């Protein structure tokens, strides 16, 4: 009893409301996903949902196809976003701090409106609404999420490492490949997390960009849930959850530098 009072009066106990909240709204819902994925409509234990997934080439195809699209989107985002982040963080090349804000600002226009405007843009330039349009649309939507974390790590980087490398005789290419790039990896990894998973899971955007011609995995999940095939839809989302867990394992190293949201302001 005494220990309880002591605990309640300490600042550690301030975590209690949040622990309770997370238990109800984060942990239990995730457990429910596992429960629903392994049961049928009547609540009996079953593997049928997963058998259905592995027996249906269509669902697997969508899954693999989505991963492919997401990989391409992520690579394009790194290829276009890394140089931008590097220029933005380099005081010799860019003096204005406000520039980074300009890259984040488009996120303020509702993602669906932006997507529809992108469709209008493609129409305007008579670009066919297919795979290419899909990837470009995804890049449009997600590149700010790649630029920002990379910019953040590059900016926090200790400049003396670069000077040391130069003093030790590295040429600019070597400095970049062996010092700057490895040190910016945490930023790249959190950028990858912010682009790769959303590309697979976002529904609606792919539908709008391709006029319903191409389906990504997120759409498949949503369609099943919408058509009251809850258990199957939930099983599919459990598969995606496992994919997320697998990708985030790559990203566990430095808890202190990455992931610290905020900062935008």
């Amino acid at each position, binding site marked *: 009893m005494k220990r309880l009072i002591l605990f309640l009066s300490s600042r550690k106990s301030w975590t209690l409301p949040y622990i309770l909240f997370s238990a109800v709204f984060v942990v239990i*819902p995730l457990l429910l996903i596992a429960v629903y994925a392994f049961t049928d409509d009547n609540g009996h234990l079953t593997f049928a949902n997963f058998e259905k997934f592995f027996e249906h080439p269509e669902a697997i195809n969508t899954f693999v196809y989505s991963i492919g699209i997401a990989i391409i989107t992520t690579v394009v985002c790194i290829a276009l976003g890394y140089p931008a982040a590097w220029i933005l963080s380099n005081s010799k090349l860019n003096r204005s701090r406000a520039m980074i804000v300009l890259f984040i600002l488009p996120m*303020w226009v509702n993602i669906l409106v932006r997507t529809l405007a992108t469709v209008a843009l493609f129409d305007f330039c008579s670009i066919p609404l297919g795979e290419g349009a899909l990837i470009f649309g995804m890049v449009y939507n997600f590149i700010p999420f790649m630029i920002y974390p990379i910019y953040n790590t590059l900016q926090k980087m200790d400049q003396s490492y670069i000077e040391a490398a130069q003093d030790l005789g590295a040429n600019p290419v070597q400095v970049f490949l062996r010092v700057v790039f490895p040190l910016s990896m945490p930023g790249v990894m959190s950028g990858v997390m912010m682009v790769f998973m*959303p590309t697979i899971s976002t529904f609606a955007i792919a539908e709008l960009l391709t006029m319903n011609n191409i389906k990504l995995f997120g759409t498949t999940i949503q369609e099943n849930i919408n058509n009251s095939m809850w258990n199957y839809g939930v099983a599919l989302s459990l598969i995606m959850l496992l994919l997320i867990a697998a990708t985030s394992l790559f990203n566990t190293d430095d808890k202190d530098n990455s992931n610290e949201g905020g900062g935008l302001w």
Partner: protein
Amino acid sequence: MVKRLFAQAYLWVLLLLLYSPILIIIIYSFTEAKVLGNWSGFSTHLYTSLFKNSVHHSLMNALINTVTIALIAATVSTLLGSIAAIGIFNLKARAYKAISFVNSIPILNGDIITGISLFLLFVSLGVSQGYVTVVLAHITFCTPYVVLSVLPRLKQMNPNIYEAALDLGATPLQALRKVIVPEILPGMISGFMLALTLSIDDFAVTVFTIGNEGLETLSTYIYADARKGGLTPELRPLSSIIFVVVLALLMVINYRAGRTKKK
């Protein structure tokens, strides 16, 4: 010098690409054509009809819902997250890691998983879905970001100040109000703004928790609209206005931040 020009040119080309869809929205908000991409002459008709309440009642309702949900969710998650961050900061390493892990779940999960898992929760509990469930869902995915914006401020804080306040006779609550809150305030503000942004822009979580009793937020309104084939033309002026207001706001904030830094 050439390198700098080249670098700046790259940034501007990228920005032009990024902004071209938004520019299209703004340009076509000044014409009456029903379909985005058709130009039927310059007109401010859409702007006036947007503000005629009777005409686009449902759109305005959706906007009001979006804004109030975002304000409530951001306020609650800022309070909940800040209190939690202070507690988490005082935990021992193992508990700290455990809670940080749980905290990162909604961030990593992606909207659709968060949405479905909360949908299952509300269905299992037999809660009817509507305004309250949407707010709860938004608090769920906003709070982790608040915690992550407040924690670094606590880490930067000199722990002795708090102890000093206690030694000088302040009660823990006074010390909290006069010492800790002012220190973490910038983190709380950026967490609040982030929560606001996330909540306003959210679509996937909202769709799964909004139920089917006719409640609409901007995102679900637009989605339903787009599925029917055409976007309500008034969305163009509305998006343009939101964009310009936010642009102006960010410019002011940035300008002021720049000035205080120089001091």
